[in-house]
């Protein structure tokens, strides 16, 4: 019952709309077509050569290509990272690889320090020295991020003999 009443209302509404639409569209408002044509011509002369929909400039124009490229790069990093030669073999290198990525973003310095702490605390006395060195340097602020990384790198690439000698 309700549905039929609703259906009736809809059809009445449609009927009213159709009648009114034919009246409104039937209004004879004269338009000077010649004038519009000359307006169109003059307008087209003013059109600059850019594509309006995709926008001006390099970034808006190639935004889809850039987005696709960025997406592929991200996918590539995640897919290829486990198979990277850096990740195989020396555990130091794998940590270094992660750190290198982290250090690109200075905001993640704290995270880096936590990571380093975990890494060096599992090591020998030398690890403790390195740990202290990192924290001392980090006190001077985030701008020392690269410096910290260099220190870590130096430690990591020092000759194996010295590492062995310390651990012994």
């Amino acid at each position: 019952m309700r549905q039929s009443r609703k259906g009736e209302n809809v059809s009445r509404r449609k009927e009213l709309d159709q009648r009114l639409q034919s009246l409104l569209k039937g209004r004879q408002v004269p338009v000077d077509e010649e004038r519009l044509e000359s307006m169109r011509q003059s307008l087209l002369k003013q059109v600059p050569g850019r594509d309006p929909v995709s926008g001006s400039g390099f970034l808006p124009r190639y935004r889809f290509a850039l987005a696709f490229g960025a997406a592929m790069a991200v996918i590539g990093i995640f897919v290829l990272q486990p198979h990277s030669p850096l990740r195989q073999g020396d555990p130091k290198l794998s940590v270094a690889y992660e750190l290198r990525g982290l250090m690109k973003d200075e905001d993640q310095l704290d995270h880096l320090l936590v990571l380093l702490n975990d890494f060096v605390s599992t090591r020998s006395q030398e690890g403790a020295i390195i740990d202290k060195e990192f924290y001392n340097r980090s006190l001077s602020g985030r701008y020392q991020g690269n410096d910290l990384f260099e220190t870590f790198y130096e430690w990591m690439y020092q000759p194996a003999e010295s590492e062995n000698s310390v651990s012994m």
Partner: protein
Amino acid sequence: MDQREWVDRLFRDHAEELCRYLRSFRMSEEDTYDLVQDTFVKLLHAKPSDLRQPKSWLFTVARNQAINKLKHDSILPVNPHVEGIEDESLGPLTRMLEDEEQAMLWQAFSKLPARDREMMSLYLEHDFPYRQIARVLGRSEVSVRVAMHRSRNQLKKWVREMEGRNHEAIQKRRECVPEERA
């Protein structure tokens, strides 16, 4: 599609319709064409992000320009966004209509507030969906839907009343005729 083709297509599709829309305000022929031209010139310099719905963009800009022009000429109500803009083409059409039912509907439509007429005109004459009408008129979509519903009901009510009055008038005339003969 380059910008030239794009502007050309938009002009061919909407310039005439825009003229009709602007002419339905209290706008002289000269001003109407000036505003259409100004609107399309603005289109050339618009931000691409604004042009996802170019038709409603054109109508919005043209309407705002018309309001500014009419305000400048001091022939607008205090707040045209609320009260709407008077449609001048209502009178002549009423005279042209021969069909009684259509004439009654048109008469009822003429009685609607200007803002509701403009809204119905955008929906029925210029084929805008509710969302774009809301954008052109600077209202919310819900308020447009509600106002359309109320306007339809009002129109039906007025048409019924007019039909009732006509019916009574015909009855009276029929009753009077035998008396006159007698």
